[in-house]
């Protein structure tokens, strides 16, 4: 399998070439280039194209405009809606979903979400209860019910694995992705960006230390690492607050050292044999430890920097409701020093969300500074941010955020980063609003927060899907319910960590499986909302 690239196709002795792509117009241009650059002298090859998850009229039209449509013998679709990223995590990896749903009113990704959910139900049983909050959630639920009605096949006789489905619109909680994540995995994503469970890191810290090596073989290519729960150590530290990772790593180091020292105690042949058989595992563990120690060092360089501290301070001030109504000095400084535009946008949006919109004077001031420093063309991006509700003028002169914050206990002063007792540890004080809603739904239920729910955008609802009598199950006392929580518009690693935290609580009562349209962070999110040339 080769990655799609421009110009000519890589040489390969094959007759058939299959393009396996998402239906994006830009990719059609690349494919056309590939097809048109085919070497006429070589043997003719057959082209096929597989769209994931659906064909697109517009893409095929583009191929036609570029004169290559007829070159494809087969144009099909491969309905891959939800992709498993881990045992409890599924994603559609649809980058455009948030913009399409919330800015353009295009519900195609919601349609795919509904289809993905129908597939899940076919495999794991009809989900008896559906809860939702938000316009898009309502649409998805409607589509699911309608699809079930049209499904004339035999009744699904699978014992339901999921007790509940919770559909949440991203715009119910615009705050969380804007804040800097503070879990280990969250920070890796914030600083380096995790793509499809892989991260690319600066290679210097990963060069193997060989004796007598004068450093002439220092690798120049980025170090690529795969990050998922198959790696024992990673599974243990990924969801911890970064400040708690160091102690885990040093404990691990001691254990591994001790294990290697055991070789001195192995006297009999049998004991030596046993030691040797465990070597691969120990070596893997040591390699894993070395990698994560290096990564932790890289992250620490960032988190101990003055700027990181200043930025975090401002974020936490906003989230705890301090000074959200005036122009912020740190943000002004960032603009003056021309820090990354996305960094600035995240901060001003955070301030706006924590203030239910900025006073017109403050908003105009920020906008002018941004346009004069980064360019007038960013008027378009600012307009998108306003449309998304991220950076807008305050209407009605009322700030609802303090009510929401207090009722849902979003800001917790006494956070324990080492041994957390509450989900607020993932942001060292701020409890993700979305996860708090899930938590409260489970216990004591949303009736207790009716007032807050009415302030948050979009309808909230509950639907029941009837099960055949044999399949209805009463949970045993002490047995956890399983809730599938679907974020429509994206989810961050910090929120995933918070949900996993809830899952493993002693008497939490609910275990969570997480699905989303896209795994994202504040940076990739804002970037998707920026206007670029066609």
């Amino acid at each position, binding site marked *: 399998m080769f990655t799609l690239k421009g110009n000519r196709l890589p040489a390969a002795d094959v007759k058939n070439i299959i393009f396996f792509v998402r239906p994006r117009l830009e990719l059609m241009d690349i494919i056309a280039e590939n097809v048109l650059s085919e070497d006429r002298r070589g043997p003719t090859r057959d082209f096929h194209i597989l769209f994931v998850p659906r064909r697109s*009229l517009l893409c095929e039209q583009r191929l036609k405009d570029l004169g290559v449509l*007829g070159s494809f013998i087969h144009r099909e679709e491969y309905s891959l809606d939800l992709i498993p990223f881990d045992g409890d995590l599924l994603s559609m990896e649809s980058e455009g979903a948030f913009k399409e749903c919330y800015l353009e009113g295009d519900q195609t990704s919601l349609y795919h979400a509904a289809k993905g959910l129908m597939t899940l139900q*076919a495999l794991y049983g009809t989900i008896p209860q559906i809860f939702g909050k938000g316009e898009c959630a309502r649409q998805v639920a409607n589509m699911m019910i309608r699809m079930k009605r*049209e499904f004339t096949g035999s009744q699904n006789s699978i014992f339901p694995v999921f007790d509940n489905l919770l559909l949440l619109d991203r715009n119910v909680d615009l705050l969380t992705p804007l804040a800097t994540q503070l879990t280990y995995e969250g920070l890796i994503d914030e600083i380096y960006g995790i793509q499809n469970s892989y991260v690319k890191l600066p290679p210097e810290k990963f060069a193997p230390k060989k004796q007598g090596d004068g450093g002439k073989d220092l690798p120049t290519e980025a170090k690529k690492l795969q990050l998922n729960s198959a790696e024992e150590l990673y599974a243990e530290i990924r969801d911890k607050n970064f400040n708690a990772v160091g102690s885990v790593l040093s404990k691990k180091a001691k254990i591994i050292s001790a294990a290697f020292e055991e070789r001195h105690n192995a006297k009999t042949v049998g004991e030596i044999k046993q030691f040797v058989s465990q070597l691969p595992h120990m070596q893997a563990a040591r390699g894993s430890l070395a990698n994560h120690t290096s990564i932790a060092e890289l992250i620490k360089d960032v988190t101990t920097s003055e700027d990181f501290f200043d930025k975090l301070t401002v974020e936490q001030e906003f989230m705890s409701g301090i000074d959200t109504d005036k122009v912020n000095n740190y943000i002004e400084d960032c603009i003056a020093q021309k820090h990354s535009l996305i960094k600035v946008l995240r901060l001003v949006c955070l301030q706006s969300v924590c203030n239910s919109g900025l006073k017109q004077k403050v908003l105009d001031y920020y906008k002018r500074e941004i346009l004069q420093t980064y360019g007038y063309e960013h008027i378009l991006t600012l307009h998108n941010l306003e449309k998304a509700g991220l950076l807008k003028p305050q209407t009605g002169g009322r700030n609802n955020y303090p009510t929401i914050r207090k009722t849902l206990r979003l800001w917790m002063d006494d956070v324990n980063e080492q041994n957390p007792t509450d989900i607020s540890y993932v942001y060292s004080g701020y409890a993700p609003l979305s996860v708090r809603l899930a938590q409260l739904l489970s216990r004591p239920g949303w009736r207790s927060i009716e007032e807050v729910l009415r302030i948050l955008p979009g309808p909230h609802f509950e639907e029941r899907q009837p099960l055949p009598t044999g399949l209805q199950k009463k949970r045993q006392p002490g047995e956890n319910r399983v809730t599938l929580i679907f974020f429509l518009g994206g989810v961050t690693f910090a929120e995933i960590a918070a949900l996993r935290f809830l899952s493993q609580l002693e008497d939490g009562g609910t275990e969570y499986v997480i699905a989303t349209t896209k795994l994202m962070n504040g940076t990739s999110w804002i970037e998707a909302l920026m206007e670029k040339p066609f």
Partner: protein
Amino acid sequence: MNRTKGDEEEYWNSSKFKAFTFDDEDDELSQLKESKRAVNSLRDFVDDDDDDDLERVSWSGEPVGSISWSIKETAGNSGSSHEGREQLKSRNSFSSYAQLPKPTSTYSLSSFFRGRTRPGSFQSLSDALSDTPAKSYAPELGRPKGEYRDYSNDWSPSDTVRRLRKGKVCSLERFRSLQDKLQLLEEAVSMHDGNVITAVLIFLKRTLSKEILFRELEVRQVALRHLIHFLKEIGDQKLLLDLFRFLDRTEELALSHYREHLNIQDPDKRKEFLKTCIGLPFSAEDSAHIQDHYTLLERQIIIEANDRHLESAGQTEIFRKHPRKASILNMPLVTTLFYSCFYHYTEAEGTFSSPVNLKKTFKIPDKQYVLTALAARAKLRAWNDVDALFTTKNWLGYTKKRAPIGFHRVVEILHKNNAPVQTCRDLKDRQQLLAYRSKVDKGSAEEEKIDALLSSSQIRWKN
């Protein structure tokens, strides 16, 4: 090319990326018999046909041995001699999804999607939807009901739309009356399927006048949004703007028009285009910004031409000492100001490239101006100019006694440019020196120097 199965396996399993192998024996999913059965019995989501069982399909998607398959063969579509090809057999429980949809004739949605074996014979999108006479496939006796019905013309809008979604035969031309067309649209919208809605909108766009189309869509929000998205995707800027004008969505009209400038590379053409944006119904604030954008580019073009000329003439010292690394075109305002303070600091207000002119034209606030000028002069190590900036009456409007807010920014700039400690001493500015001291590395030579100065009794500090 006929590879044996064994060769195929070896080929796939020896590829660079060892990901999913179709013959994964240990796949635990293949053991979920119950689930497998459920998935295999799914209908509507897998583009299945009226046929009940999973059938063997040839590579072209026809069920082997079916009437339509034989028709295609008879019709001489010899390009599809796919006998030699291996069937895509997958043994995992998602096999229903890998099943290929049935092929159809030329009139359906899928005719856009269906591969033509004769390159270049593909009709245009609109042609495909039109009512061209059918190839004469003589209806044979004993054809399955489903196939026969493909060629009749009495599908209701909802059935039409459902068939469109499955990629089946469907002529939209028979929806002649406006009411029929609107009903078709309504059905498409309720299906939530983007491709179907797009197909119907293409049809309506072609067969309805602009005014009627706009009028009808005005009250159909979902379809309207879809049309806007579609027009943006295909870049039909003209129709999009007409639509916004009709809907009186003035601000969107303005922004959409302005957005085009990103695609114009030539600076003069872009400047002319920006001129057309002035006076469009932006908000008051945005109107000012758009005007500034135009004015700025206009100035930049003049400055760029002039400076390029000076640079190549080689007579101007500043350009010789500090050759320009990039053009000033399309740079933001503050960057342009910095450039101007760097290369044209001493020019009088009359020239386009003078900093003072920029300040006046764009109403740049004092604070911003001074900080930018400071950064530029510090970079050039023009300490006299730095000095002058500090001692002007306009210096941040603060008295010399109190350290002004934002002063740390001054320190940042000086520190970044390694302002000699002398400067601070010369300015007799102890506050600044103290602030500066906090920035230098501990134990450095600079710190020592600073300490020495601070403790010197000879200097009469002003603060």
